């Protein structure tokens, strides 16, 4: 469960995120939809405590991130924008490093990794060195690394960016499984179909502000449009005009 209230942050006097508020419930997939530079990544970075907000607060399972980063992060897994892996380590070693840092033993990491590798069809990647992996293969290792500690809340920053069809499907299956297990999943994207196909709740962000929030049906009804794309364009331009 994530609760974000009036989160604001500016860089060098330019507002990147202003007064963003939303709630992401357990057992639901919440999509942050917005064009490039809308403030999605900045919002996610504040939720996981890498960026300090100028104002507002982010609560992870009732723990205020700015107050107690350590406890908040224990139940938080994040696939950040930068997915850097260690090229000289194998896939398994990359995942195990993060698992061990989270306090998991090697056996525990292996026990969790095997079914996950199966699910993402990357079992053959685990014991090869990461150098030479394709972008999709890297993304799979990166997601496994991000959720190896089985957090109740998962943040994914454009998780299907640069992935081919098969990898995208595997990723979607994984995201649905996480929801099925009752976890709270938040993912950001600028791809309408993706958000439309996966999300229970959609939060549309434009120019650092939340312009709409609701299920896809609610958004379509609100804007009297037939597709999410039309709804998105309509909502974004409404904001422009309002200014």
């Amino acid at each position, binding site marked *: 469960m994530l609760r974000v209230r009036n989160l604001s942050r500016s860089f060098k006097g330019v507002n990147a995120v202003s007064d963003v508020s939303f709630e992401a419930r357990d057992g639901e997939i919440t999509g942050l939809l917005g064009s490039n530079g809308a403030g999605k990544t900045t919002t996610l970075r504040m939720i996981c405590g*890498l960026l300090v907000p100028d104002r507002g607060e982010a609560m992870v399972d009732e723990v205020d991130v700015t107050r107690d980063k350590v406890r908040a*992060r224990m139940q938080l897994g994040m696939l950040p924008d930068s997915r*850097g892996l260690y090229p000289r*380590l194998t896939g398994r070693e990359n995942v195990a490093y993060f698992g061990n*840092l989270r306090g998991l033993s090697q056996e525990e990491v292996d026990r969790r990794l095997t079914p996950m590798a199966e699910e993402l069809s990357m079992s053959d990647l685990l014991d090869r060195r990461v150098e030479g992996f394709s972008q999709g293969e890297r993304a799979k290792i990166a997601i496994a690394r991000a959720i190896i500690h089985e957090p109740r809340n998962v943040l994914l920053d454009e998780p299907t960016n640069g992935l081919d069809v098969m990898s995208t499907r595997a990723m979607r299956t994984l995201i649905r499984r996480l929801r099925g297990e009752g976890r709270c999943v938040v993912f950001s994207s600028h791809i309408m179909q993706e958000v439309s196909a996966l999300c229970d709740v959609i939060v549309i962000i434009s120019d650092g502000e939340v312009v709409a929030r609701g299920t896809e049906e609610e958004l379509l009804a609100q804007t009297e449009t037939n597709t999410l794309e039309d709804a998105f364009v309509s909502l974004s331009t409404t904001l422009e005009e309002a200014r």
Partner: protein
Amino acid sequence: MNQLLVVFRKELRDAIRDRRSVLSALIFPLLTPLLLIFVFQMAVDEMENPPAMRVAIAGEANAPGLVEELLAHDVEVEAMERDVLADAVREGEFPAALDIPRSYGERFREGFPAPVFFYKDGAARRHRRTADRIERVILGYSATVGTLRLISKGVPPATGQPIQVTAVDLSSSKARAAELMNFIPVLVLFACFMSGMYVAMDVTSGERERGSLEPLLLTTSDLRMLVLGKLGAALVFAIAGSVLTLVGCVFAFGQLPQEAMGFSGAIDASAAWMILLLMLPLAAMATALQVLVATFARTVKEAQTYLSLFMLLPMFPVMFLSVKAPALTAWMAPVPILGQYLLINELLAGREVLWSYLGLAGLASVTVGVVAAWATALLLGKERVIFGRS
């Protein structure tokens, strides 16, 4: 604590698999003994087989006695036109040339100083010593003839030698060896700075360049553990490299042919241990500073630029010191690099070194290292470092 070990193990494994890191830690230890043994071999060769004394000579018919004396001392004499003598020396064809004017014979017979012109090139290193040896043969002949003349006139020969100089070289054989051993502190200090450098860059700027810093920072909140683990891995390389370099030096000096050099190069065990004791804190300081400097860099390449400038830090004092080293005093001991350099020199010269000086040198370096590590931990949490990717 547990996180520290996890980071340390991972970084160590990662670094061992990196050819560049391993190579840069091994380059000094591998090259050092080879270089030293090569230098010794050259020195021994020159001592055992001095180059032939060859002299170009004009007007040799004017001084048959002198020429005979030269030949008797294994000087090879080669007749040459008078006007090309100087050029023969200038071009390095001969170490020296001798011009004996016509007046020589007459003046010699009449007991006046007989003139000869001796040409040598004082700037030609490879000929300088040979030319000096030839010159000494001539001066020796002059002295012998002078003595004979005094005797023939019934004058005691000592009359012509009012002062007798006997030079006594007071430097112990250890101290003379120390002159050659000037190499050691330089090599060892460089090894401290070189061996862990690549690892220091890879665990910091490499992390930023690959984009793995952001996900890494999400797993931990104690940046000090992270920094110490990384520093530890780099330090293993720095220490391995510098210890192997020291072992290489000790080994190479042990190979020194004592009978040929006239002194023993053997470094005794207690001195070697104390040098090791001096090196470890310095390596820690060097590595911690490198980790700090490299954290500012967004890419390994950028870090390389900073750190090659940073390498001037040991280079300047060491170069200056190897030309003119001041006498060790208390305030110098805790100055990093300066203290270690002077103390290592003292140890190599076989002199006693105060434990308090060793302690001061170590303490000061470790303090700088701890401050650098602490600063790195502060820096790693900064937004511009986490997200400042190029």
